[in-house]
């Protein structure tokens, strides 16, 4: 029962807000309440999974593989917990910054349904159901992205919508083909049936469709174009959720299917993944180095960091995948936080343009500190969370003699640091280029507290993961071991 709640709860609150559509002022409080509930549920869930191992729920009482099954293993429960944390952080931040117009047009219910879709994608054990959750997530993100209807939003949305729908079309075709091959949709059942096909090599062909489809969603090279074209256009709270969670659903899906279903020809598929990872790491960071806009730099960095996660998958060892998972955890927290900080800067100066910003460190040293923590963590500076993630994947790469990708990963660390210092120099250290202009100040205490609170919270998590990485690494390691031993998953879903 507990396992379905991460989907049901945001759905319920989303419906509730729609029922009280006109009372949009209450939406934000309901949203906050719902996010707290989600945090509690997700913590209970992961606690249960740690204690009892993988838990499943056969929806409608139809036993797998006939109905849809929901599965919580460690990996998916970790993702659900982080989603809840990000949901909570943005709930606070939205209360501080969201305008009434967007609230009036369903901003909060959309947010809840987005979270429902994300949780659904993490928890489902059925490949077609995964498609459905992807669509739930996508359509809500479409609307959240376009909500407001400014020209740049619309242009960003066009690219985002089109490319993601192309991905969905490929995904759907892949699902159909899988059913045509194996006659089942349950992922555990697929893992059992596919190796027994007459020509199991067909699986590899289908895996390519999934690689491309999920590759687009997770924004890897050369499929990432939609991301830098759109993530900097909506309000900060929206980009923060997107930046933190959406691409990671793609990464989650990649890791899930390429550890459970498509493992028949690892030397082929996972080499491709590794090459893609290296190119993603590199092109993303170079893209970031070229930008002069706060959020665009951050957007390109997402791509680069996705590469590191995929690298963990491509290396395909226990440490590598643990590193990849740790990377996901770290990155979601840190990237969301950086987008929130960028939003805060925008509240103060009404621009994201690095050329027009400056002098903020002198006036707001605390904001500077709150930027530095996630920024340094993102660059992999120890002892913050990013270091441990990078350390794990690099160590795994060295252990497997994959020196080229290790070299790329290390070198890019330097460029990451460079682009973070670029923001730091231009926004914080540099003298304000428009000194004569008057700027907004945030005098409203409630607004100040609500926008600072999530930033501080996420920064604290970054520091805690950094200083006390042991439990986090441990759980990532256990999750990775579960992924690498699909029999456990299969047994949990199908029985014997």
């Amino acid at each position, binding site marked *: 029962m507990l396992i379905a709640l991460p989907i049901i709860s945001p759905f319920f609150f989303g*419906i509730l807000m729609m029922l009280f559509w006109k009372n949009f002022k209450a939406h934000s409080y309901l949203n906050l309440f719902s996010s707290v509930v989600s945090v509690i549920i997700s913590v209970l869930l992961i606690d249960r999974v740690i204690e009892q191992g993988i838990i499943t729920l056969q929806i409608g009482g139809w036993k797998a593989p006939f109905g849809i099954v929901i599965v919580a293993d460690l990996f998916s429960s970790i993702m659900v917990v982080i989603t809840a944390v990000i949901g909570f952080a943005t709930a606070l931040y939205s209360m501080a910054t969201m305008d009434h117009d967007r609230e009036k047009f369903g901003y909060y219910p959309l947010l809840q349904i987005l979270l429902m879709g994300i949780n659904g994608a993490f928890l489902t054990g059925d490949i077609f159901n995964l498609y459905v959750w992807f669509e739930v997530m996508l359509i809500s993100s479409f609307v959240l992205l376009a909500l407001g209807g400014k020209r740049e939003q619309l242009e960003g949305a066009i690219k985002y919508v089109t490319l993601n729908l192309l991905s969905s079309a490929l995904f759907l075709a892949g699902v159909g083909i899988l059913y045509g091959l194996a006659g089942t949709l349950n992922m555990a059942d697929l893992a059992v049936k596919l190796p027994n096909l007459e020509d199991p090599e067909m699986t590899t062909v289908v895996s390519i469709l999934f690689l491309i489809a999920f590759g687009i969603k997770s924004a890897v090279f050369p499929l990432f174009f939609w991301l830098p074209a759109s993530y900097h256009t909506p309000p900060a709270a929206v980009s923060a959720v997107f930046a933190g969670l959406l691409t990671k659903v793609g990464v989650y899906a990649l890791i899930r299917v390429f550890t459970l279903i498509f493992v028949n020809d690892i030397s082929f598929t996972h080499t491709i993944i590794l090459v893609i990872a290296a190119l993603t790491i590199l092109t993303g960071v170079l893209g970031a180095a070229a930008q002069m806009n706060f959020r665009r730099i951050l957007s390109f960095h997402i791509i680069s960091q996705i590469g590191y996660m995929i690298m963990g998958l491509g290396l395909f060892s226990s440490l590598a995948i643990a590193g990849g998972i740790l990377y996901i955890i770290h990155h979601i927290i840190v990237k969301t936080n950086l987008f929130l900080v960028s939003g805060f800067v925008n509240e103060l100066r009404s621009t994201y343009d690095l050329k027009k910003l400056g002098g903020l460190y002198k006036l707001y040293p605390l904001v500077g500190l709150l930027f530095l923590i996630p920024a340094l963590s993102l660059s992999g500076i120890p002892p913050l969370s990013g270091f441990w993630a990078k350390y794990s994947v690099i160590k795994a790469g060295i252990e497997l003699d994959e020196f080229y990708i290790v070299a790329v990963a290390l070198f890019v660390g330097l460029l990451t640091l460079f682009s973070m210092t670029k923001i730091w120099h231009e926004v914080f250290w540099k003298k304000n280029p428009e000194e004569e202009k008057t700027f907004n100040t945030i005098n409203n205490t409630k607004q100040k507290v609500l926008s600072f609170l999530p930033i501080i919270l996420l920064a604290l998590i970054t520091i805690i993961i950094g200083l006390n990485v042991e439990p986090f690494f441990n759980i990532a390691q256990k999750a990775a071991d579960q992924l690498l031993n699909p029999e456990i998953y299969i047994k949990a879903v199908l029985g014997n």
Partner: protein
Amino acid sequence: MKTSVILSTAVKYLIPLLLIFSFFLFLRGHNEPGGGFVGGLVAASAFALFAIANGFDEAKKFMKIEPIMLIALGLLIALLSGLVPMFFGLDFLTGIWFEKNFPIIGKLGTPLVFDIGVYLVVLGISTKIIFSLAEEEK
């Protein structure tokens, strides 16, 4: 939008028919082609027809309920039909059926309630989209 007398008179009689037909489609869905989705669409077309005949403001008044409410209600009903079995110790969305057959309706159970949710959502979204676009054109 101009309205013609003949059309609006015809529509007056057509709409109840369409609504009944939609309900019929919905009910037989469990055993014959049909179901909540198609039923909802037919119902929506009834309101669309009304709007063409009498104008969109009239149609909104005629509907009495804001489409978003319909959508929300539909979703809520679908969700509740899934939650109810949980009070009986069953899994989420498990079907529960009344033992005896009802006249006209036949068997009654939570999957049917779920389908009512689908029906309402489809009705709600179709009218919402049509009304929004029509208002835009004005």
